[in-house]
């Protein structure tokens, strides 16, 4: 189970942190400068890497992976078949929302680990009652 104060980091929080033009950049710069224990999923790492490949190049994409490696308070969680099954169930329950499998796996992992705060700028991530850091940290 998760530790008290643990936060889940979504792809959008990483992008807001690295992009100086993002309106949430200052907030996530502050949060990452003094972080609690952080967790994220392999899918978030893959999504962030893909974002850099699409928007920039392999050099920037590798810098993103270095960011993940160097962030010591961050643990990248393994995804098991059961997590994907649970995420699929969630996607079926909220099929009216444009959630990605990465979002749903994140929500499932947060539920499983009892994580109460999500670092994200994506309002979908608050759809299951999870607190978003952008709403009051």
């Amino acid at each position, binding site marked *: 189970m998760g530790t008290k104060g643990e936060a889940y980091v979504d*792809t*959008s*929080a990483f*992008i*807001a*942190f*690295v*992009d*100086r*033009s*993002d*309106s*949430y*950049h200052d907030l996530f*710069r502050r949060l*990452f*400068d003094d972080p609690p224990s952080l967790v994220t999923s392999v899918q978030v790492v893959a*999504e962030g890497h*893909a*974002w850099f490949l*699409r*928007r*920039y190049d392999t050099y*920037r994409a590798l*810098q*993103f992976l*270095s*960011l993940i490696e*160097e*962030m*010591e308070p961050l643990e990248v969680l393994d995804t098991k078949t059961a997590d994907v099954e649970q995420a699929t169930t969630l996607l079926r329950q909220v099929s009216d929302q*444009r959630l*990605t499998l990465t979002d749903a796996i994140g929500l499932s992992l947060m539920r499983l680990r009892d994580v109460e705060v999500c670092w994200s*700028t*994506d309002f979908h991530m608050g759809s299951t009652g999870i607190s978003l850091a952008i709403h009051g940290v």
Partner: protein
Amino acid sequence: MIRTQVSLSEEEYEAAKLEARRLGISLAELLRRSLRSILPVDASKPWMRFAGMIVTGDPESSQHIDEVVYGHKG
């Protein structure tokens, strides 16, 4: 200050000189600034050197990730 020698290709040297002139600083100062931008400010938080490493120009870039990665939603 510690003096050191750096080998650059002709193209790198010309480009660096041009950029230094544009900024109104010396070549040495340009190289010092470049180095500072890739070294961690606080060695205990090496990830902080990636803060603000890109400027997309989009104030909502973190909210448009799905469009970039998965394409526009129908």
